[in-house]
Each structure stands twice: as structure tokens, then as C-alpha cells.
């Protein structure tokens, strides 16, 4: 297998000699992880509430409660709040009128208007807001009760604060009935994007690399390699090996860097590497298919990048699979990306073990086997054309 190794090493050397690869392999993917993470991150916080109304004791009390619950609160006038809701920038709008503020100060009945946005996830935020408002209401009624019983207001507040410290209030946990929100609850801001970009770039870099195989064939180096004591099988093994190592480096790099820079959790690292390497074999074999079928290297780069992006899109490496309508979800299963995505999701979000991801690994292995056989046959055929 020494010749195969020599061929693989040369492919690697050539890959890293191309300076433009450095940006695409090392910088670009992380930028995407960052951008996607930032968007995903805002969506997945405990909700965004836009508050309208002038500063008042009521507003301060409710906002304090909400922020204690990790809800993001913004202040605006009533019109802007409605606009934000319409655009989906906020989940819930809270309208604290002057009357309500006065009623609150005087310990009377308070009405606060809540408007929710249409998007999924806002129901959970509504729950948060209700809980917060209720908590404020309870506290205010307690203060009122104590002052009517003769305490001055300051003493009443004091007594309540002491009571809060000694008696643990019942924990109100807002449980989310939205499946989607459940799936992503507890998932780090960058976790999904990092898994998506790993799959996308591994495949993209492999397919785009199919051009180097065409160049080698056209330049006659492949023919010359075969004039040496090297069998066609060794040439094929060397080509796959080279592409595989490049793919592994790409994937491993994104995994390591995203974990270091963005704290992405990959779950069981051995299983993560198993998924990655199986996916890399599929990618390397796919590259060999393109590099053998096509004879024009710049066209192959284009086709490689195009195919890489389309498969990534179809396979959940752009929009998460969970957001796919049913029909698209079925189509996704024809891409290796979808199986890689599912497997990563299992170990990243649900602490899955080997048995849980075995089906995904199995499908990837089958895809790899088919593509390897096809690629070998096509490459063998193309070698006869190489002259």
C-alpha cells in the first residue's frame, strides 16, 4: 500500500499549497458558525418581550421579574411595539398604560394588555409574562394587605423580603408544549450551526477537490503513475485516501475550533469522530465519482460546489431538518447530510450512545460503499481515457 500512501500524501500537499484553500477551510466555516449561532441564539433565548408605557413602579416590577427569568426585554412606544410584533422581532408585547400604573401604585385592580406575535415559541413567552405579572400582583396584594393591617409601607416591604428569604416560594416552571422549542431547549447557541457547517464544508471541500483529480489525469501524471509499478486499485485507494484525509482535517478543524471558540458541545467525542469519518468516506467517494465522470476541471469545481450546496440545503445543513415540511424531510433522507445531522443531533442534544446512532452510521456506510464501488469503476474507466 506504499504507493497509495504516496499518492494520498501528494494530494494533501497539493491541497495545502493552494493558498485560496486556507481561507475556505480555516476561516470561512467559522464565520458561518458565528453568524448562524448569533441568529439562532437570539431566537432561542427565553423569549423577547417589547414593553410599551412610561417608567412606573408597575413596569419596573414586571420587567425585573421577566429579566430574572432570562427574558430579553426592550422598551418602545406602543406603535413600535406593535410593529416589532408584526415583524416577528418580539414574541410578546406588553402595554403598561398610565392608568394601570396609577392603579398599581394605589393597590387597585390592574389591567395589563398582552399582545402575542404569531410565530411559534411566543406561547412560551406568554406563559413567562403571565407568571411574571402574577408574581408582581401577588407581591403587591401582600403589601396592600399588610398596610391595611396597620404596618407602614416600608415595614411591610421589609417583612415580605424577610419572608421571601426564609420561605422558598413554589417554583413555577413554564413547561413548553411546542415540540420544536423542546427539541432545541438546552441546546447551545452555536451547537446546531456548528454541526451543519461541519457537514456542509466537509462535503463541499471534497467535491470541489475533484478538480485536482481531473487535472492530474489531464496532465498525464495519472498515466505516468500507472507506468510505474502501481496498480489501478492503488491509484484509486490513494485518491480516496487523500480526499478522505482532507475531509477529516476540514471536519475535525471545524469541530475543534467551534468547541474552543464558541463552546460548542459535541457530546461523546469518539462517537462524533465516528460520524465524521463515515461522512468523510462518503464525501471522498463522491469526489472520485465527479473527478472520473467529468473531464473539465473548472466545470467540475462548479458542479462540485453546486452539488455540495444543494445537498447541504436538502439535508438540513442550512435550515435545520426539524423545520422541514414532511415531504422535504423525506427527500432529505436521500442526502448523506441528513443522516450526519441526525446522528450529530442525537449525541449533541440527547446524549445518545453508539446503539442510538447505529442506524445513521449504517446508512452512511451503505452510501459510502455504493459510491466507492461506482467511483472505482468510473475512475478505472477514465484512466483508459487519460492519454
Amino acid at each position, binding site marked *: 500500500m*506504499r*504507493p497509495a500512501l*504516496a*499518492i494520498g500524501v*501528494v494530494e494533501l*500537499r*497539493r491541497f495545502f*499549497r*493552494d493558498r485560496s484553500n486556507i481561507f475556505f477551510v480555516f476561516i470561512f466555516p467559522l464565520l458561518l458558525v458565528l453568524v448562524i449561532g448569533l441568529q439562532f441564539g437570539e431566537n432561542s433565548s427565553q423569549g423577547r418581550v417589547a414593553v410599551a408605557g412610561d417608567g412606573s413602579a408597575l413596569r419596573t416590577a414586571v420587567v425585573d421579574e421577566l429579566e430574572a427569568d432570562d427574558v430579553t426585554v426592550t422598551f418602545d412606544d406602543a406603535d413600535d411595539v406593535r410593529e416589532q410584533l408584526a415583524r416577528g422581532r418580539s414574541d410578546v408585547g406588553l402595554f403598561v398604560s398610565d392608568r394601570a400604573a396609577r392603579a398599581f401604585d394605589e393597590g387597585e385592580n390592574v389591567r395589563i394588555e398582552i399582545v402575542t406575535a404569531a410565530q411559534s415559541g411566543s406561547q412560551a413567552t406568554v406563559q413567562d409574562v403571565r407568571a411574571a405579572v402574577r408574581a408582581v400582583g401577588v407581591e403587591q396584594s401582600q403589601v396592600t394587605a399588610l398596610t391595611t393591617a396597620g404596618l407602614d409601607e416600608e415595614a411591610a416591604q421589609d417583612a415580605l423580603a424577610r419572608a421571601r428569604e426564609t420561605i422558598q416560594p413554589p417554583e413555577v416552571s413554564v413547561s413548553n408544549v411546542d415540540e420544536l422549542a423542546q427539541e432545541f431547549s438546552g441546546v447551545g447557541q452555536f451547537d446546531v450551526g456548528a454541526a451543519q457547517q461541519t457537514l456542509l464544508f466537509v462535503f463541499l471541500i471534497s467535491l470541489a477537490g475533484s478538480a485536482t483529480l481531473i487535472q*492530474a489525469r489531464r*496532465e*498525464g*501524471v495519472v*498515466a*505516468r*503513475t*500507472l*507506468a*510505474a*509499478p*502501481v*496498480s*489501478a486499485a492503488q491509484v484509486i485507494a490513494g485518491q480516496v485516501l487523500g480526499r478522505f484525509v482532507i475531509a477529516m482535517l476540514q471536519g475535525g478543524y471545524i469541530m475543534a475550533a467551534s468547541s474552543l471558540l464558541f463552546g460548542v458541545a459535541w457530546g461523546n467525542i469518539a462517537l462524533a469522530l465516528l460520524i465524521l469519518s463515515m461522512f468523510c468516506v462518503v464525501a471522498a467517494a463522491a469526489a472520485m465519482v465527479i473527478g472520473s465522470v467529468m473531464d473539465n476541471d473548472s466545470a467540475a469545481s462548479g458542479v462540485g460546489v453546486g452539488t455540495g450546496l444543494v445537498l447541504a440545503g436538502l439535508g438540513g445543513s442550512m435550515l435545520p431538518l426539524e423545520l422541514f415540511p414532511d415531504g422535504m424531510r423525506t427527500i432529505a433522507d436521500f442526502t448523506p447530510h441528513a443522516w450526519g445531522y441526525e446522528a450529530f443531533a442525537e449525541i449533541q442534544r440527547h446524549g445518545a450512545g453508539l446503539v442510538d446512532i447505529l442506524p445513521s452510521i449504517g446508512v452512511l456506510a451503505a452510501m459510502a460503499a455504493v459510491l466507492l464501488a461506482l467511483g472505482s469503476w468510473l475512475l478505472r474507466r477514465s484512466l*483508459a481515457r487519460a*492519454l
Partner: protein
Amino acid sequence: MSADTVPDESTRVPDAGDDVLVVRSLVRRFGGITAVDDVSFRIGQGETYGLLGPNGAGKTTTISMVAGLIRADSGATLVNGREMGPDRVDVKHHIGLVPQNLAIYPDLTGRENLRYFGRLQRLGREALDRRVDEVLELIGLTDRAGDLTKEYSGGMKRRLNIGIGLLHQPRLLILDEPTVGVDPQSRHAILESVEALSVEGMAVLYTTHYMEEAERLCDRIGIIDEGRIQAEGSRDELVRLTGGVDHIRLNGSGDIDVAADALRELPEVEQVDADRRTLYLTVRDAPTAVARIVTSATRAGLSLTDVEITRPDLESVFLHLTGKALRD
């Protein structure tokens, strides 16, 4: 495990003799065209054999079969007495191929290219280091070994292309038009190194469509056209095929016809043609005959202004055999 552990002798074909290369009745078709049509020749140790022919004659196709890159439709190739073919990985070690089209990685340095192909030849670490340095020295690229080959001049790339074929010191070196597109100086250097190799005992198969190269380098030459070897032999043997005659042209003033008649009397002169001021003579052994011819012509009253001797070369042999010029 690897096929190159198979002992040489077991697969030796008995009637191969001592020839390094035996090519027997090779045929190869591409669709409707028969690119190589019943080609046979042999090359002994230390011998340089030339395939001389115009574009499309079938030189590269022949070489591709000899190097085991493509399969022959029929016929056989024996290298060192063992049959060659695309699957004969073990036999390939004995040949070094220098393809017509530069087969080097442009994005690797000269040294990296040599090391890569050296590894494919299974040279051990030490042998590889040593041979790469030796070959770099030989092809005069030691100073540029660390540069990417895409920055090399055409001649430097050609030299590297040859160097790769020499790395593992093969028994048979195959060079397919190695001097195409190089300047006269590089060309001279290439020819010199090929001469040196055959002195060392390497068998060389050399294709070209430059007759000067074939004349200078090759012990024997096969003239190939339209896939067939039209004639084969040493330069002198081939030249004799044209009838072994030389041409002498005489220019002068006087009675041309009288001079022509006088010259026809000479035994060395086979044929005389005349126009107004010029005589065209076909003679045997022009260098010896020319003195008597000049004397006779002068005696017949011709005052000569110009005498030119033309001896046949491979170009005229090719013309004689095929009725067309070697270069179109």
C-alpha cells in the same frame, strides 16, 4: 502480497533471447482507425532504437502498449523476457517512461515531483535521497530543485520530465519525442544525456519526427507511417534502400548537352538530366566520383560556376518509402 516479489525467471518467455524489449505484431485500433498495425521490433541491451515517423504515425500508441498503459488488440510485448500489459505491475519496474506530454505536477517543486515518482518505484529512503540528488545533477536542475515546476522554463520542464524516467535506473528507457519545443541548447543537452545512458548499457526506445535526432542517436531506426513499420535498419542500411545513390548538381556555361553526353560515358554516373544551365547527375559514391566528373565536364567545354553534392538522408528515405515528406 505485492506482485514484484514474483521471481523473474518463472515468467520468462523462452524465446525472448537477450533482448531487453521484444515487440511482436502489435495491433491497436481506435474505432475505425488502426493506429498501430502489426508492429514488431527488438531492442538489445545498450542499444538505442528510434521510431521515426510523422504526426499520427502511431508512435505514442506503440509506446503506450510497450509501457503497459493500454492494452493491445493483438500481439505481445516482452520486457526482459516477461510479458507486459496493464496489469503487469511487476514488469513495469523495468521500464522508465518519459511521456510526450509533460507529466509533472505544476504545483509541486522539482524535487517533490522526483520524490513522488521515486516512491512509486519503491525506492527506499536512502536510495531515494541519493537518486534524487544524482538525477537533479544530471538534468542540471540542482539549483532550481526547490522551485515549483510551473515556474520552470519549457526546457527545464522537459529535463525534469526525462529525469523522472531515469530515477530508478530502468533496463529500458522510453522517450516519446522528448525534445519537442525546446531551445537548441537544451535539446543538445538532452541528446547528450541519452547518448550517455546507452553507453551505460541502458536500452533506449526513442521516438521522434526529427531525422537528425534519429540519425545521431539511434543504432537502429524503424521508419513508421500509418501504423506500420515501413523499413528498419541502421542509418546506412536505410539509406541504401533508396538505391544508395547520391546526387550532384553542376552549374556552368558552355554546351550543356555536349557535357551531358560526355558524363553519361562515365561508369559512376547512372543518370544525367539537363536543363539550360544545370546538370543533375545521379551517381554512386559522390565524394569519390566528383573529381572525375568535374574533369570530364570541364574537358567537354563547360565552365563550372557551382558544384553541389547531395547525399541521401532519412528524409529522402522516408520520401522514397512513402511518397511524402516527413514533416508536413
